[in-house]
């Protein structure tokens, strides 16, 4: 279990990285926290010809409140997210979800950009950011573009990033007032990838009716998916038990998560339904200030 040979570059600036990618993007792989990539290299399941180490680039690690949104640098480590007061106060869904990522040693190295670009549908951050309507700022030597989640995640472990592009920042809109969120997942052991899970944001108006609902499902499909039908059901409701239960049913309607040794499709559907229902119940309570 030793990695195959590769050429190593460690650019000092984003521009340097982009210029290298412009030339060698096709055969290069970006090394962020390395907590998913390096195991795959050790198994020789991944064998990039060139590894572009982003850890030496200053200025890609930050969590900032800008106007109406949050900006997180791509190389911000999970550990920083976990302990950010800014997130805990304004975007507690991220704080909650990050606690489910692997273990401390993994969170000390892993980065938000790496997790998003790895696009594992069972990973916590992609699904959380999907529930938060995050946008991804992507740069290349050719320019810059900003992508919504639906335009970023292409399939299991696939994004729409071009070989010469790199993710530089995640933008997360502020939550409206009277919002409550919840992240739930079920894994075989603490710290394992979830077999099913949900990230939920519910917003209520002054009268206690749901004005906005956002539900994203973990390990439900090749990409993090929003449960649109369930969201529609919730909006306008008083988030009563019957509606929450009906919304959980609607959330998994038509899904067919792929199974493995830890759980087949039927079991995973059951889990998705349960996790969605629990996350909805908690988020509803929080949005109503209970």
């Amino acid at each position, binding site marked *: 279990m030793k990695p195959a040979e590769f050429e190593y570059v460690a650019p000092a600036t984003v521009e340097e990285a982009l210029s290298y990618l412009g030339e060698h993007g096709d055969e290069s792989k970006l090394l962020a926290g390395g907590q998913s990539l390096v195991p795959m290299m050790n198994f020789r399941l991944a064998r990039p010809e060139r590894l572009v180490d982003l850890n030496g680039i200053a200025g890609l690690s930050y969590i900032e409140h800008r106007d109406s949104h949050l900006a997180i640098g791509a190389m911000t480590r999970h550990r920083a997210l976990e302990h950010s007061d800014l997130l805990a106060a304004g975007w507690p869904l991220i704080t909650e979800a990050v606690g489910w990522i692997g273990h401390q040693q993994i969170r000390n190295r892993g980065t938000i950009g790496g997790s998003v670009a790895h696009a594992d549908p069972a990973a916590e951050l992609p699904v959380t950011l999907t529930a938060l309507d995050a946008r991804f700022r992507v740069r290349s030597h050719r320019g810059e573009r900003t992508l919504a989640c639906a335009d970023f995640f292409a399939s299991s472990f696939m994004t729409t990033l071009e070989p010469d592009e790199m993710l530089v920042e995640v933008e997360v809109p502020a939550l409206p007032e009277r919002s409550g969120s919840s992240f739930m997942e079920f894994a*075989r052991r603490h710290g394992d990838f979830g077999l099913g899970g949900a990230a939920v944001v519910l917003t209520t108006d002054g009268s206690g009716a749901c004005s906005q609902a956002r539900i994203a499902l973990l390990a439900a499909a090749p990409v993090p998916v929003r449960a649109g039908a369930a969201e529609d059901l919730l909006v306008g409701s008083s988030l009563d038990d019957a509606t929450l239960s009906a919304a959980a049913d609607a959330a998994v309607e038509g899904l067919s998560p792929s199974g493995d040794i830890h759980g087949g499709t039927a079991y995973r559907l059951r889990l998705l339904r349960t996790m969605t229902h629990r996350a909805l119940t908690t988020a509803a309570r929080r949005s109503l200030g209970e």
Partner: protein
Amino acid sequence: MIPLVELVPDVEPPTEVMGIGTSAPRLEDRPLVQGRGCFVGDFKRPGMLHAAIIRSPYAHARITGIEVSAAMALEGVHDVVVGADLPSDTLIPMRQFRVPGAELFLQSPMARDVVRYSGEPVAVVIADSRYIAEDAAELVEIDFEELPVVLDAEVALAADAPRLHQGTPSNVAGDMVIGHGDVDQAFASADLVLEEVLRIQRHAAVPLETRGLVAEFDEAEGSLTVWGAAKIPHVNKGILARLLGWEERRIRLVELHVGGGFGARGEFYPEDYLIPFCAMRCKRPIAWIEDRDENLRAMNHSREQIHHVSVAVRADGKFLGLKDELICDTGGYIRTHGMTVPAMAAAMMPGPYEWPAYHCHVQSVVTNKTPAGTYRSPGRYEANFVRERLLDMVAHRLGIDPVELRRRNLLAEDVFPYDAGTTYDGHDVIFDSGKYELLLDKSIECFDVDAMRRWRDEPVQGPLRRGVGMAFFVEKAGPAVKEYARVEVGATGEVVVFSGTASVGQGVETVLAQVCASHLGIPYERISVKHGDTAVIPEGMGAFGSRAAMLGGAAVMLAARDVREHVLKLASDELEAAPEDLKLAAGGVVVRGSESKRVAWSRLVELNGGTFKEEGRYSCEFLGYPYGVHFAAVEVDTETGGIEIKKYAVGYDVGRCINPMLIRGQITGGAAQGIGGALYEEFAFDPNGQPLAASFMDYLLPTVQEVPKIDILVTEDAPCPLNPLGVKGAGEGGTAAVGAALANAVSDALGVEVTALPLSPERIAQLIGGNQ
């Protein structure tokens, strides 16, 4: 029927020398906590090269060609060895429980023509570094022609099943029947007969340190040294000598620090031949450090059994008879353990109860999976699950409390020694001593089982269901009939114990030092224990089956006693005092009460004409049988199928404790492994025989979050009458009944009878039914 031995009293109070019965901190710890241990991966020899083993990617295939030239051309590559390079008749022998016919299923160190499991060695690359060796391994081109795979032992039994081994009449590598009494009559007279099929999944020891070897050939001397031995260095030296056709004296095996054994580490594996073979061929020291990818496919798997079992009982709960059709999936080959695991399951199936009749038909069946061997509490973990689960089903059907049902059938105190009516590897199974009901009573009180049951009956909100389960069991300890020890005291008063046992991390050095302290009369921290080097220790049987403290301890006791006698005699002459008035101390021997009257060790050694040196050998044809009870309280989430263990308790009678702290450590660690086997760990395969739990992402060892605090009661109510220390080995009781107790607790919670392990959340969800 068994030879009974008197207990030999200690010569000094235990607290004065930290002897038998005290929780002495371990002598082993210091280098290990400092990071200065020497595990095989830490060990280096000058000029050492590194091996990588190419393993079959197929579960069953014919090798039609191997092309090594591209690999050989890579810079830094020294050799590529394939099956055809080995002497053709090399087969790894069984070291235990041989049955006629099983020799047709033995494994060669490297496949020549046919591979029978994914992970079987096909070639070895030798290079300057492991990195380069793995690069070269990718350049070796091997052509395979796939053959039909057999992955289910019951399918393998069918007459038209593909045959794994040529020249064999079937896929059955071992077939035997044991039992006693008239089973037909028992079933004919029963008020209740239950028939069930119970299954235990394939899982394994998986120590945290993978295997590894460093082999060096001394051409001038014609000798071979192998570092990285474990468990049974002397036995493996014999096997290697036999396979090479050498005299044993030309081979030296050395045990370094060992990162856990649990039955699997230290057996003679294909690599134990291949790496020395490569060292001789390359005439350079060769290191092979197994990586985890290899480890999960190559090291012995265990536990996979199917039991078609039926029980006959009277309406009042009295057991009448037990019948079992036991099928053990032993993987692609018979390895060193022969029939050990299924035969042990059959021998111990009756457990702590009186059965008028018992019949068991055992078949060990080959399939295209990793070969199997032992894992902590081999055969018993499986048998305890089957029997104790069945007994709870009986209790439910008869409306008798599960504790009460067991109580009515437990063996009484006055029946010991008790012939269980079964045999194991040619020996009758005779339970040496026991006070089963006493342990049951003490445990119920100590763990407040009544409170557990009240907790279970409290009303709970939401999807959670509570259950309490128990399992009673008999363990076995102390196989391999004999052990060697030598105790030496030199001119500085330093004591050295040489033992034929081995360390797998269990604390054997401390325990043997404590035995020596108690019988020599010198504090344990002045005693060092040497083991595991066949050039230093003349003979030994190693560490397995909870034997080291029993047989190894008794041998140390005998040697220590002789040294003491010798020392006291000389000192008594010198000091003109009676031996019983003397005391051994750090500086020499002193007169009790007037300790200024003393003779120094240097003088005593001089009088003795050299270092005091006595050997001890302890032999015992019979096994000790510790026994125990587990209680579990669980909460099951009926929506997710998740299980939370709220309380887990183990009561265990070990005859006599040498070190209570270490015994509790064994029980806690053993229980954690039992929990892994009951809830998390499973070697699954795809329809082509590809392992699906091939990394630690999928083979789920329990973390601290999955293992609750284990409540423990250790008792000494039934000393072992087979050895002068009264001890029974204590290594396996923590593991033995976890599958049983947790399955019973989960069945209790759900009101559904569990019939298979592991209790994965998906399986629990299926038991509950209703996917939404």
